[in-house]
Protein backbone atom coordinates (compact mmCIF):
# COMPACT_ATOMS: atom_id res chain seq x y z
CA UNK A 1 0.00 0.00 0.00
CA UNK A 2 3.03 2.27 0.12
CA UNK A 3 2.36 3.93 -3.19
CA UNK A 4 -1.33 4.49 -2.63
CA UNK A 5 -1.30 8.11 -1.55
CA UNK A 6 1.15 9.08 -4.26
CA UNK A 7 -0.77 7.46 -7.10
CA UNK A 8 -3.18 9.97 -8.52
CA UNK A 9 -2.74 8.94 -12.13
CA UNK A 10 -5.13 6.01 -11.85
CA UNK A 11 -8.23 8.11 -12.51
CA UNK A 12 -8.94 6.27 -15.75
CA UNK A 13 -8.70 2.90 -14.02
CA UNK A 14 -10.99 4.08 -11.20
CA UNK A 15 -13.73 4.98 -13.65
CA UNK A 16 -13.38 1.63 -15.43
CA UNK A 17 -15.62 -1.39 -15.10
CA UNK A 18 -15.69 -3.59 -12.01
CA UNK A 19 -13.88 -6.86 -12.62
CA UNK A 20 -14.79 -10.32 -11.34
CA UNK A 21 -11.49 -12.14 -11.58
CA UNK A 22 -12.88 -15.31 -10.00
CA UNK A 23 -15.89 -16.35 -7.95
CA UNK A 24 -16.63 -19.94 -7.19
CA UNK A 25 -16.66 -23.03 -5.00
CA UNK A 26 -13.47 -24.91 -4.19
CA UNK A 27 -13.09 -28.49 -2.99
CA UNK A 28 -9.38 -27.86 -2.44
CA UNK A 29 -7.69 -25.64 0.15
CA UNK A 30 -7.86 -21.98 -0.85
CA UNK A 31 -4.61 -20.15 -1.50
CA UNK A 32 -4.92 -16.66 -0.03
CA UNK A 33 -1.70 -15.52 -1.71
CA UNK A 34 -3.18 -16.52 -5.07
CA UNK A 35 -6.28 -14.44 -4.33
CA UNK A 36 -4.12 -11.41 -3.58
CA UNK A 37 -1.99 -11.91 -6.69
CA UNK A 38 -5.08 -12.36 -8.88
CA UNK A 39 -6.62 -9.01 -8.01
CA UNK A 40 -3.47 -6.87 -7.98
CA UNK A 41 -2.38 -5.10 -11.16
CA UNK A 42 -0.12 -2.15 -11.93
CA UNK A 43 -3.13 0.17 -11.38
CA UNK A 44 -3.75 -1.20 -7.87
CA UNK A 45 -3.16 1.09 -4.91
CA UNK A 46 -4.80 -1.06 -2.23
CA UNK A 47 -5.67 -4.70 -1.71
CA UNK A 48 -8.04 -5.84 1.03
CA UNK A 49 -8.36 -9.55 1.76
CA UNK A 50 -10.74 -11.45 4.02
CA UNK A 51 -10.43 -14.92 5.48
CA UNK A 52 -13.37 -16.72 7.07
CA UNK A 53 -11.72 -19.31 9.30
CA UNK A 54 -12.99 -22.40 11.10
CA UNK A 55 -12.89 -21.60 14.83
CA UNK A 56 -12.74 -24.00 17.74
CA UNK A 57 -15.99 -22.93 19.42
CA UNK A 58 -19.58 -22.01 18.62
CA UNK A 59 -22.36 -21.10 21.04
CA UNK A 60 -20.29 -22.14 24.04
CA UNK A 61 -19.46 -25.61 22.68
CA UNK A 62 -16.09 -26.77 21.46
CA UNK A 63 -15.87 -27.36 17.69
CA UNK A 64 -13.48 -29.96 16.28
CA UNK A 65 -14.21 -29.81 12.55
CA UNK A 66 -16.77 -28.67 9.95
CA UNK A 67 -18.22 -30.26 6.85
CA UNK A 68 -19.40 -27.82 4.15
CA UNK A 69 -21.95 -28.85 1.53
CA UNK A 70 -23.09 -26.74 -1.41
CA UNK A 71 -26.11 -26.89 -3.68
CA UNK A 72 -25.02 -27.42 -7.33
CA UNK A 73 -26.13 -23.85 -8.06
CA UNK A 74 -23.79 -22.37 -5.44
CA UNK A 75 -20.94 -21.60 -7.82
CA UNK A 76 -23.25 -19.92 -10.30
CA UNK A 77 -24.92 -17.92 -7.54
CA UNK A 78 -21.54 -16.81 -6.28
CA UNK A 79 -20.73 -15.51 -9.75
CA UNK A 80 -23.98 -13.55 -9.84
CA UNK A 81 -23.37 -12.04 -6.42
CA UNK A 82 -19.79 -11.11 -7.29
CA UNK A 83 -21.02 -9.47 -10.51
CA UNK A 84 -23.58 -7.46 -8.53
CA UNK A 85 -20.86 -6.33 -6.13
CA UNK A 86 -18.55 -5.43 -9.04
CA UNK A 87 -21.33 -3.39 -10.63
CA UNK A 88 -21.77 -1.53 -7.32
CA UNK A 89 -18.03 -0.79 -7.07
CA UNK A 90 -16.64 0.42 -10.41
CA UNK A 91 -12.89 0.17 -10.75
CA UNK A 92 -12.51 -2.68 -8.25
CA UNK A 93 -11.14 -6.17 -8.98
CA UNK A 94 -12.78 -8.98 -7.00
CA UNK A 95 -11.89 -12.58 -6.15
CA UNK A 96 -13.80 -14.98 -3.92
CA UNK A 97 -13.81 -18.70 -3.19
CA UNK A 98 -15.90 -20.73 -0.75
CA UNK A 99 -14.55 -24.05 0.39
CA UNK A 100 -16.60 -27.24 0.56
CA UNK A 101 -15.74 -30.60 2.10
CA UNK A 102 -14.21 -31.48 5.46
CA UNK A 103 -12.41 -28.58 7.18
CA UNK A 104 -10.36 -28.57 10.39
CA UNK A 105 -10.02 -25.75 12.91
CA UNK A 106 -7.87 -23.04 11.33
CA UNK A 107 -8.80 -23.86 7.74
CA UNK A 108 -10.08 -21.13 5.42
CA UNK A 109 -13.77 -21.56 4.61
CA UNK A 110 -14.17 -18.32 2.64
CA UNK A 111 -11.48 -16.17 1.08
CA UNK A 112 -12.25 -12.85 -0.60
CA UNK A 113 -10.02 -10.15 -2.04
CA UNK A 114 -10.73 -6.72 -3.49
CA UNK A 115 -8.27 -4.42 -5.21
CA UNK A 116 -8.76 -0.78 -6.11
CA UNK A 117 -6.73 2.32 -6.83
CA UNK A 118 -7.49 3.61 -3.32
CA UNK A 119 -8.09 1.90 0.01
CA UNK A 120 -11.63 3.16 0.66
CA UNK A 121 -13.18 1.37 -2.31
CA UNK A 122 -11.13 -1.77 -1.64
CA UNK A 123 -12.38 -1.97 1.96
CA UNK A 124 -15.99 -1.32 0.97
CA UNK A 125 -15.99 -3.73 -1.95
CA UNK A 126 -14.39 -6.53 0.08
CA UNK A 127 -16.94 -6.14 2.86
CA UNK A 128 -19.82 -5.96 0.38
CA UNK A 129 -18.50 -9.10 -1.35
CA UNK A 130 -18.16 -11.07 1.89
CA UNK A 131 -21.60 -10.07 3.20
CA UNK A 132 -23.27 -10.83 -0.14
CA UNK A 133 -21.71 -14.28 -0.24
CA UNK A 134 -22.37 -15.10 3.41
CA UNK A 135 -26.04 -14.22 3.08
CA UNK A 136 -26.65 -15.28 -0.49
CA UNK A 137 -25.15 -18.65 -1.44
CA UNK A 138 -26.75 -22.05 -0.80
CA UNK A 139 -24.03 -23.55 1.39
CA UNK A 140 -24.54 -25.37 4.69
CA UNK A 141 -22.16 -26.68 7.31
CA UNK A 142 -22.27 -29.56 9.74
CA UNK A 143 -20.51 -28.65 12.94
CA UNK A 144 -18.88 -31.46 14.86
CA UNK A 145 -18.54 -30.67 18.56
CA UNK A 146 -15.90 -31.80 21.01
CA UNK A 147 -18.66 -33.40 23.15
CA UNK A 148 -19.45 -35.75 20.25
CA UNK A 149 -22.62 -34.04 18.96
CA UNK A 150 -23.18 -32.31 15.65
CA UNK A 151 -25.61 -29.89 14.03
CA UNK A 152 -26.39 -28.49 10.58
CA UNK A 153 -26.46 -24.72 10.16
CA UNK A 154 -26.39 -22.15 7.35
CA UNK A 155 -22.91 -21.11 6.25
CA UNK A 156 -23.12 -17.69 7.92
Amino acid at each position, binding site marked *: MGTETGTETGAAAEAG*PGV*VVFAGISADPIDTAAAWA*AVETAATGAVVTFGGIVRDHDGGRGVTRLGYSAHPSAGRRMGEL*AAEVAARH*PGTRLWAAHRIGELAVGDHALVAAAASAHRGEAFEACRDLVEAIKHGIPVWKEQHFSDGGSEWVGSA
Partner: protein
Amino acid sequence: MTARRTASVLIASTRAATGAYEDQSAPVISKWLTGHGFDTSQSLVVPDGEPVGAALRALLLLDPRVIITSGGTGLSHDDLTPEMTRPLLERKLPGVMQAIRSAGLADTPYAALSRGYAGTAGRTFIVNLPGSPRGVADALAVLDPIIGHICDQLEGSHGH
Protein backbone atom coordinates in the same frame (compact mmCIF):
# COMPACT_ATOMS: atom_id res chain seq x y z
CA MET B 1 -37.45 15.55 -16.74
CA THR B 2 -36.45 12.00 -17.62
CA ALA B 3 -33.77 10.02 -15.84
CA ARG B 4 -30.64 9.21 -17.77
CA ARG B 5 -30.78 5.83 -19.46
CA THR B 6 -28.34 3.30 -18.08
CA ALA B 7 -26.29 0.83 -20.08
CA SER B 8 -23.82 -1.85 -19.04
CA VAL B 9 -20.73 -2.99 -20.90
CA LEU B 10 -19.88 -6.61 -20.16
CA ILE B 11 -16.44 -7.73 -21.30
CA ALA B 12 -16.04 -11.51 -21.52
CA SER B 13 -12.32 -12.16 -21.41
CA THR B 14 -10.41 -14.49 -19.15
CA ARG B 15 -7.17 -12.73 -19.99
CA ALA B 16 -8.61 -9.27 -19.26
CA ALA B 17 -10.18 -10.46 -15.99
CA THR B 18 -6.93 -11.92 -14.75
CA GLY B 19 -5.08 -8.74 -15.69
CA ALA B 20 -2.90 -10.51 -18.28
CA TYR B 21 -3.94 -7.98 -20.85
CA GLU B 22 -5.80 -4.71 -21.02
CA ASP B 23 -9.13 -4.91 -22.78
CA GLN B 24 -9.37 -2.40 -25.64
CA SER B 25 -13.08 -2.69 -26.34
CA ALA B 26 -14.67 -1.52 -23.08
CA PRO B 27 -13.49 2.11 -23.38
CA VAL B 28 -14.66 2.26 -27.01
CA ILE B 29 -18.11 0.91 -26.18
CA SER B 30 -18.44 3.08 -23.06
CA LYS B 31 -17.51 6.19 -25.00
CA TRP B 32 -20.06 5.36 -27.69
CA LEU B 33 -22.78 4.75 -25.11
CA THR B 34 -21.93 7.97 -23.28
CA GLY B 35 -22.20 9.79 -26.60
CA HIS B 36 -25.73 8.43 -26.90
CA GLY B 37 -26.61 9.75 -23.46
CA PHE B 38 -26.22 6.55 -21.43
CA ASP B 39 -24.79 6.24 -17.92
CA THR B 40 -22.29 3.36 -18.16
CA SER B 41 -21.04 3.22 -14.57
CA GLN B 42 -22.33 -0.33 -14.07
CA SER B 43 -19.94 -2.18 -16.37
CA LEU B 44 -18.13 -5.44 -15.77
CA VAL B 45 -15.23 -7.60 -16.86
CA VAL B 46 -15.57 -11.34 -16.20
CA PRO B 47 -13.80 -14.52 -17.33
CA ASP B 48 -15.18 -16.37 -20.36
CA GLY B 49 -17.80 -19.08 -19.93
CA GLU B 50 -20.24 -19.50 -17.03
CA PRO B 51 -19.29 -16.19 -15.35
CA VAL B 52 -20.77 -14.39 -18.37
CA GLY B 53 -24.21 -15.87 -17.63
CA ALA B 54 -23.88 -14.99 -13.97
CA ALA B 55 -22.92 -11.42 -14.83
CA LEU B 56 -25.77 -11.04 -17.33
CA ARG B 57 -28.33 -12.19 -14.75
CA ALA B 58 -26.82 -9.86 -12.15
CA LEU B 59 -26.89 -6.91 -14.55
CA LEU B 60 -30.51 -7.61 -15.57
CA LEU B 61 -31.54 -7.17 -11.93
CA LEU B 62 -30.34 -3.58 -12.30
CA ASP B 63 -32.73 -3.14 -15.27
CA PRO B 64 -30.38 -1.28 -17.61
CA ARG B 65 -31.83 -0.26 -20.98
CA VAL B 66 -28.88 -1.77 -22.84
CA ILE B 67 -26.28 -4.46 -22.17
CA ILE B 68 -23.49 -4.69 -24.75
CA THR B 69 -21.21 -7.69 -24.39
CA SER B 70 -17.85 -8.01 -26.11
CA GLY B 71 -15.92 -11.24 -26.48
CA GLY B 72 -16.56 -14.94 -26.25
CA THR B 73 -18.48 -15.22 -29.53
CA GLY B 74 -15.97 -17.35 -31.42
CA LEU B 75 -15.20 -21.06 -31.53
CA SER B 76 -12.67 -21.56 -28.74
CA HIS B 77 -13.88 -24.05 -26.14
CA ASP B 78 -14.59 -21.36 -23.56
CA ASP B 79 -16.29 -18.98 -26.02
CA LEU B 80 -19.75 -19.32 -24.48
CA THR B 81 -21.16 -15.79 -24.51
CA PRO B 82 -23.94 -16.70 -27.00
CA GLU B 83 -24.87 -19.81 -24.99
CA MET B 84 -25.02 -17.71 -21.81
CA THR B 85 -27.11 -15.00 -23.53
CA ARG B 86 -29.66 -17.00 -25.50
CA PRO B 87 -31.67 -18.41 -22.53
CA LEU B 88 -32.15 -14.88 -21.18
CA LEU B 89 -33.62 -13.44 -24.39
CA GLU B 90 -37.38 -13.22 -24.55
CA ARG B 91 -37.40 -11.84 -28.09
CA LYS B 92 -34.55 -12.23 -30.57
CA LEU B 93 -33.50 -9.64 -33.13
CA PRO B 94 -31.78 -11.72 -35.81
CA GLY B 95 -31.88 -8.82 -38.25
CA VAL B 96 -29.59 -6.79 -36.00
CA MET B 97 -26.97 -9.54 -35.98
CA GLN B 98 -27.36 -10.00 -39.72
CA ALA B 99 -26.61 -6.31 -40.23
CA ILE B 100 -23.63 -6.44 -37.84
CA ARG B 101 -22.16 -9.47 -39.60
CA SER B 102 -22.68 -7.87 -43.00
CA ALA B 103 -20.84 -4.74 -41.86
CA GLY B 104 -18.03 -6.85 -40.42
CA LEU B 105 -17.62 -8.87 -43.61
CA ALA B 106 -16.51 -5.72 -45.40
CA ASP B 107 -13.43 -5.81 -43.14
CA THR B 108 -12.78 -9.48 -42.58
CA PRO B 109 -14.23 -12.85 -43.59
CA TYR B 110 -13.90 -13.86 -39.91
CA ALA B 111 -16.99 -11.76 -39.19
CA ALA B 112 -18.98 -14.74 -40.44
CA LEU B 113 -17.67 -16.72 -37.44
CA SER B 114 -19.18 -14.46 -34.80
CA ARG B 115 -22.03 -16.41 -33.18
CA GLY B 116 -23.55 -13.62 -31.11
CA TYR B 117 -27.21 -12.88 -30.49
CA ALA B 118 -29.24 -9.71 -30.17
CA GLY B 119 -32.58 -9.51 -28.44
CA THR B 120 -34.53 -8.24 -25.49
CA ALA B 121 -35.06 -9.35 -21.91
CA GLY B 122 -37.78 -7.29 -20.27
CA ARG B 123 -36.98 -3.67 -21.10
CA THR B 124 -33.31 -4.45 -21.73
CA PHE B 125 -31.73 -4.72 -25.17
CA ILE B 126 -28.82 -7.19 -25.17
CA VAL B 127 -26.33 -7.58 -28.00
CA ASN B 128 -23.23 -9.80 -28.27
CA LEU B 129 -20.35 -8.10 -30.05
CA PRO B 130 -17.07 -9.75 -30.97
CA GLY B 131 -14.01 -9.11 -28.84
CA SER B 132 -11.85 -7.42 -31.46
CA PRO B 133 -11.81 -3.61 -31.41
CA ARG B 134 -12.39 -3.56 -35.17
CA GLY B 135 -15.41 -5.85 -34.87
CA VAL B 136 -16.76 -3.66 -32.08
CA ALA B 137 -16.35 -0.52 -34.18
CA ASP B 138 -18.18 -2.09 -37.15
CA ALA B 139 -21.03 -3.22 -34.89
CA LEU B 140 -21.39 0.15 -33.19
CA ALA B 141 -21.68 1.80 -36.59
CA VAL B 142 -24.64 -0.48 -37.30
CA LEU B 143 -26.24 0.23 -33.92
CA ASP B 144 -25.66 3.97 -34.20
CA PRO B 145 -28.86 4.89 -36.08
CA ILE B 146 -31.11 2.36 -34.31
CA ILE B 147 -30.13 2.30 -30.62
CA GLY B 148 -32.33 5.26 -29.74
CA HIS B 149 -35.36 3.78 -31.45
CA ILE B 150 -34.80 0.41 -29.79
CA CYS B 151 -34.82 2.08 -26.37
CA ASP B 152 -37.89 4.18 -27.25
CA GLN B 153 -39.78 1.05 -28.22
CA LEU B 154 -38.71 -0.85 -25.10
CA GLU B 155 -39.89 2.05 -22.99
CA GLY B 156 -43.18 2.18 -24.88
CA SER B 157 -42.71 5.81 -25.87
CA HIS B 158 -43.39 5.85 -29.59
CA GLY B 159 -42.66 9.39 -30.63
CA HIS B 160 -44.85 9.38 -33.73
